[in-house]
Every structure is written in C-alpha cells, then in structure tokens.
C-alpha cells in the first residue's frame, strides 16, 4: 500500500487586523479606566489624558460631564481586546446576548424615576429644613448615615457604600444653604413697603424668606444729624431699597450668592460683603444692615435706576434684570456735602 505523499499544510491565511476600538482599560485605571483606554487607543501615555481631565475639571467643569459619559457609554475591555456589555445594558437585563424584555426595561426605568424623585424631594427638604433652622438635624442625619456606612464597611457589607449617596443628597443643599447664610424668616411672596415716617419703620427691619421686596424710603424725611437703622433680610430672592438723595447711606450689605448693587457699586458672585459710608457731613444717616442669602440686593435713588424686578416694574422701562446701570451714575454725595433738602 502506498502512502500518500506528505504535503506540508499551508499556513492559515493572515487574519485581517482587528479594527481599533476605544475600550476602557481593565488594568490601567484610576477611576473608570477611561484615560487608560484613551491612551491605549491613541498610543500615548494615559497620564496625558488624566492631566487633560484634571485641567478640564477646572475649566468650566467640563470633565465632570465628559468623564462620566465616557465611563458609562464606552465599554470595558474584557481582557482580550473585546468589549464587555455596557453596565447600562446589563442593568436592563441585556447581558449574555439576550435582549432585555419590555417589562424589565419599564421596571428599571420606574425604579430609576422613583429614585430621582425621592432624591429631589430629599434635596429640597434638606435645604428647607436647614433654612428654617433645622440644620443641626440634617447634619446629625448625615453623620449617622456616615457612621452606618463605616459600620457596614467594617463588617464587609459592600452595599454600605450606597449610604453615601443619600448622605450627599442631604449634605449638598444643607451646605449650600449654610454657606449662603439663607434663613427663612418673614414670609413669602412680594412685598411693597413705603413708610411715611421713621415711626413706620419696623423695629426688627424688613424681612422676607423667599420672594421680592421693594422698600421705598423717599417719604421718610429724616432729620439732619440723626441716624436711622435699616435692617433688611432676604432668604432667597431680591430686595430693592430706594433712599432719598439727601440721605447719607452707611453700613453694609452681605450676600451669600448673587448680586449686591449699592448706589451703582456692584458686586457679583459668592460671599459678597459691601461696606458703604464714612460720613463727614451733618446729613441724615441711614445705617443699612442688609443680609441676603441668595439673590439680589440693590440700593438706588429712583425707581428708574432699579435693575431688579418687584411689584412695581411699571415705574421703569419694561424688562427684568436690566443691565443698563451705567446710564445711572449714582452717588452717595450726602455723606460729604451736607444736607441738600
């Protein structure tokens, strides 16, 4: 019997190169492996992308949006250069090549929606409780949640880390309210005051929790050489104070976040504290003590100069938050030139 001639098996045809895919790295990761994946995809050191994300975090916070999006929607490397199913897909039960059922999708969406609504309610409630003076309770609950997470962590419960989420939802609004110094006292809505004399000024000042206040003091007729105190408190909102031109304005206006505009001198941003005054004349003096949590506060001489809204926008040109303050060069002349009227 003759043996068939031995033939060397031909080598397998070369595989076409796999198309390059952007995948999150399993091994080179600090957070989600996004920078590691980008570095591998572009063939550069991932530290470059980490540095870019850090820079973008400080430039308008772009990284805080871009990184989570890449984390969620770029699949992770399975270790062999292939993409794993996206966690979002797995959440809907779409792992293992089977598509998620409609029921599962609706159930997951319902749970996510309910969680978001609960978080929103918790967020608002925490801010409100802090603003009405219950900040100690909120802080106490945050501490307790933290202690529970520590307890769970020490006993090896991985789920304990989820306690951090409601704690942050509680701490964030409470922190914002605390940092801005928002205190809810004095009612809500729009207030319009036009006291006819010093006797009509409220002893504890003008207060509003949330809304807008218009305080027109042009009919006060203060006596020369006298000092009249004017406390103003706004939790969230805006207040406009109209003072006569013959009155020397002194004191300070503080705002946790927003705008302070005192006779044309404007400050924007956070932790604002503007002082005015230094009287050398015998003009009547108005001692301002304005405390705004979040919002706008302004002192002007005439309604036309007001930039912010209120119940009497019909006084000035239409428009809310007009930005034409330069047309109205205001002064506090009465502090230095004496009574003028």
């Amino acid at each position, binding site marked *: 019997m003759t043996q068939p001639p031995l033939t060397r098996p031909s080598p397998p045809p070369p595989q076409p190169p796999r198309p390059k895919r952007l995948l999150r790295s399993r091994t080179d990761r600090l957070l989600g492996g996004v920078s590691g994946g980008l570095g591998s995809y572009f063939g550069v050191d991932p530290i470059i992308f980490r540095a870019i994300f850090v820079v973008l975090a400080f430039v308008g916070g772009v990284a805080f949006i871009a990184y989570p999006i890449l984390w969620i929607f770029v699949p992770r490397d399975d270790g062999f250069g292939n993409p794993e199913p996206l966690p979002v897909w797995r959440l809907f039960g779409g792992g293992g090549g089977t598509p998620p059922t409609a029921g599962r999708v609706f159930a997951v969406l319902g749970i996510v929606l309910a969680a978001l609504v609960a978080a929103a309610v918790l967020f608002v409630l925490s801010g409100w409780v802090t603003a009405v003076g219950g900040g100690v309770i909120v802080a106490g609950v945050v501490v307790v949640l*933290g202690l529970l*997470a*520590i307890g769970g*962590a020490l006993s090896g419960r991985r789920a304990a880390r989820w306690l*951090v989420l409601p704690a942050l939802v509680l701490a964030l609004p409470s922190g914002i309210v*605390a940092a801005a110094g928002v205190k809810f006292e004095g009612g809500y809505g729009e207030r319009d005051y036009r006291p006819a004399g010093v006797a009509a000024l409220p002893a504890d000042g003008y207060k509003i929790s949330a809304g807008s206040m218009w305080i027109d003091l042009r009919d006060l007729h203060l006596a020369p050489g006298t000092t009249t105190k004017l406390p103003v408190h706004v939790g969230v909102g805006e207040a406009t104070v109209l003072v006569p031109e013959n009155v020397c304005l002194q004191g300070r206006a503080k705002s946790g976040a927003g705008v302070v505009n005192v006779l044309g001198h404007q400050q924007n941003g956070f932790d604002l504290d503007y002082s005015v005054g230094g009287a050398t004349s015998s003009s009547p003096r108005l001692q301002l003590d304005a405390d705004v949590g979040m919002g706008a506060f302004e002192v002007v001489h005439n309604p036309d100069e007001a930039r912010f809204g209120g119940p009497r926008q019909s006084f000035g040109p239409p428009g809310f938050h007009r930005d034409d303050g330069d047309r109205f060069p205001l002064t506090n002349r009465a502090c230095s030139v004496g009574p003028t009227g």
Partner: protein
Amino acid sequence: MKRGVDIPALVGGLVTVGLGLLLLLDRVSVLHLGFGWLWPALLAAVGTFLIASGMSGSRRQ
C-alpha cells in the same frame, strides 16, 4: 467565611461623617461655612470616595 473590610464604604463613611461634622460645626457657630469652603470640601469628599472605589476595584482584578 469572614468578610474583609469594604474600603470604599469605609472611606465613604468617613468622608460623610466629616461632611456632617462640618455642617454641624457651622450650625452651632463654631465655624462659618462659606462657599470658599463648601466647594473644595464637597469635591474633595466625592474625589476621595471615587479614588477609593477605583483603587479598590483595580486591586480586586
């Protein structure tokens, strides 16, 4: 089988307690929490938790 300490939960818990204490100290007027403090404190808290989670995840693998 004895379960080990869950590092992200531990770090998250410690950070949360720290934030809560910060809020508490502000409310009892021991310190004044301004926006100059708040954003760095919150970012540091979230960042610490994320780094702990990331490092723990990469060590598991």
